[in-house]
């Protein structure tokens, strides 16, 4: 899919726009207005560059580029800013920093590498971000020249900038002291802007404008020459062919004056190809926007100025996300607690409800059987009571009959006492046997033990009196051996 990007060069009240698609400029647009930012915003609103990188090259006076040294371990915005502010006498509070830094993987950890850092007015950068609203990258023209080796001369309204790009990196850049065509407009006074635009558009009938503009060009070229000479002493390879860009390059005497100073005119192959539909004299006005479009979305975050509002918004979003994560974690914990206790509690309550329903159903069933229930309960209670009371009651006739039957012949019971005690009947009796023999006593003692099943058989006394044997016996008969009554 062909890459699409948009480059916008904002130079005072003039903006040039280039949209690149697959390396070809599909849109070339020039906007001139006192409130050019509002007009550019309108253009963006109409274009709606969603997911299309847009880079704004802001031409602003008081922008400085310096080469600084960084290491792979310190190539962040903070370390770049520290290095830059050490080299430049500018206040940190009112400025902002951007830089081109070689990829970290090309720098050994502790080896110093060269980077190009730019400091610009914080107000100017913020004004552009605020005005355009769309997510654009704001930087300055020298940082859009990454990879475009050569000597670049930008002549604009706001400023004129000479930049040397070597090995893809702008190694030197200087805003020329003469400024931009804005100085010519100022010199011409009221209506100067229109007269200058007319001159740039090819009109040469205004001799005053021509003269003032030529004087500006002469001074400009002289400063370019001196700068070139200065750089030539520091750099081993400074080309003398100049790649022109900016609206001011249409000044009629510029090419002639440069040639007179020993400079040739070079064309950047990419820019030339992308803008080939334009005549060469018109192309230079779009070269700056072209380079902005080429570098849009590349070069990393350092290559553009930070958008303070976006940074604050990102910080707010990060805080919101963190808050959301915390809330999510708490919610998950609550859900987990619910799963650990709440769900079983809910199940337990449901089970409790079911148990209550079971009890209610059983109670209702029992209520329908109330009469039968009363009968059953009374029957059970009475049965248990009778069983308890009557369990050990002997059939007395059986006991008394056995005792009488076991008595030896001629032996008569004169008194007998029997009482139920525990699991046996305790018996004591007095008896009289005819004759003076002890045989009836001993015989009965044997029979009680052997025939009646009595135990603890004992005689508490016996005596012979009046020709009879009188004696007393005590023993116990287990009730289990006696027939029960019920």
């Amino acid at each position, binding site marked *: 899919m062909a890459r699409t990007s948009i480059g916008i060069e904002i130079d005072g009240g003039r903006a040039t726009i280039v949209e690149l698609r697959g390396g070809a400029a599909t849109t070339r647009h020039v906007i001139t207005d006192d409130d050019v930012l509002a007009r550019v915003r309108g253009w963006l609103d109409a274009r709606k560059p969603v997911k299309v990188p847009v880079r704004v090259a802001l031409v602003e006076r008081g922008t400085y580029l310096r080469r600084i040294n960084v290491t792979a371990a310190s190539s962040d915005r903070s370390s770049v800013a520290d290095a830059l502010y050490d080299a430049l006498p500018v206040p940190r509070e009112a400025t902002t920093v951007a830089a081109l830094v070689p990829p970290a993987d090309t720098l050994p950890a502790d080896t110093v590498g060269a980077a190009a850092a730019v400091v610009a007015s914080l107000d100017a950068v913020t004004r552009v971000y605020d005005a355009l609203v769309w997510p654009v990258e704001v930087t300055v023209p020298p940082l859009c020249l990454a990879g475009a080796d050569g000597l670049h001369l930008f002549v604009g309204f706001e400023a004129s900038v000479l930049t040397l790009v070597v090995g893809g990196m702008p190694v030197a850049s200087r805003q020329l002291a003469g400024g931009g065509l804005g100085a010519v407009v100022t010199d011409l006074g009221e209506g100067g802007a229109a007269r200058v635009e007319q001159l740039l558009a090819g009109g040469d009938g205004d001799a005053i404008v021509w003269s003032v503009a030529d004087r500006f060009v002469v001074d400009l070229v002289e400063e370019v020459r001196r700068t070139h000479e200065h750089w030539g002493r520091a750099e081993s390879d400074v080309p003398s062919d100049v790649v022109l860009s900016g609206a001011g390059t249409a000044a009629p005497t510029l090419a002639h004056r440069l040639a007179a100073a020993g400079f040739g005119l070079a064309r950047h192959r990419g820019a030339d190809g992308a803008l080939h539909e334009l005549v060469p004299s018109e192309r230079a006005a779009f070269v700056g926007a072209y380079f902005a479009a080429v570098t849009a979305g590349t070069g990393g975050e350092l290559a553009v100025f930070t958008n303070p509002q976006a940074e604050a918004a990102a910080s707010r979003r990060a805080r919101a996300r963190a808050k959301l*994560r915390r809330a999510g*974690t*708490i919610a*998950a*914990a609550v859900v*987990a*607690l619910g799963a*650990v*206790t*709440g769900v*079983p*509690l809910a199940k*337990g*309550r449901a*089970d*409790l409800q*079911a*148990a*209550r329903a*079971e*009890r209610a*159903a*059983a*109670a209702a*069933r*029992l209520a329908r*059987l109330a*009469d*039968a*229930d009363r*009968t*059953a309960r*009374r*029957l*059970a*209670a*009475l*049965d*248990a*009571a*009778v069983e*308890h*009371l*009557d369990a050990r*009651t002997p*059939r*007395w*006739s059986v006991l*008394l009959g056995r005792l009488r039957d076991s008595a030896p012949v001629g032996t*008569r*019971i*004169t*008194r*007998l*006492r*029997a*009482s*139920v005690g525990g699991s046996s009947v305790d018996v004591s009796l007095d008896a009289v046997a005819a004759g003076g023999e002890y045989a009836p006593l001993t015989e009965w003692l044997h029979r009680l033990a052997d025939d009646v099943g009595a135990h603890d058989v004992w005689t508490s006394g016996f005596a012979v009196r009046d020709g009879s044997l009188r004696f007393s016996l005590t023993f116990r008969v287990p009730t289990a051996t006696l027939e029960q*009554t*019920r």
Partner: protein
Amino acid sequence: MTRLKILLVVLVAVCATVPGRVALGRLRSVGQAAADIRTEAAALERRADTAERVAADPKAVAQLATLEAALPAGAGLADAIDQLAGAAASAGVSWTAGTPAPLTGQARAAKTPAGVRAWTLAMTVSGPDSAVDAFLDAAVSLDRLVVVDTVTLTAEGAATTAAVNARLFAYTPEER
């Protein structure tokens, strides 16, 4: 620390704190309450099963009547005396004395189950041995439950005098 670990830490912390303990305590109490109620429901079901069996058993009413005759709701002393006097006459003994008295205090508690009131009845009968035996058998075979605890026989010529200590009962479940 992964989110899962954080979650587990929070979970343990929450469970260890008062709300967690309250929730777990409530969970246990709800479970116990459900178990108790089910036990009650099972008991009610068993009673209903028994009631159904009794309702379906034609002998149950007659059995209840027999048991209620054995253990009436009140003392029913007059009926008891009538029945015992009838038994004495049938057996051929003379019932010469009788002393009923309520059984109270520790003696009652030791000898009677819950809901049962008891009276002692000391009786004196006389007659031949066989008649005394028959009276004793008849006394403990009446519709009214009579329990003979002690029998004292004294021979007096051809006759025997029997001192009988017995107990009578009534079933009044509201008492005790």
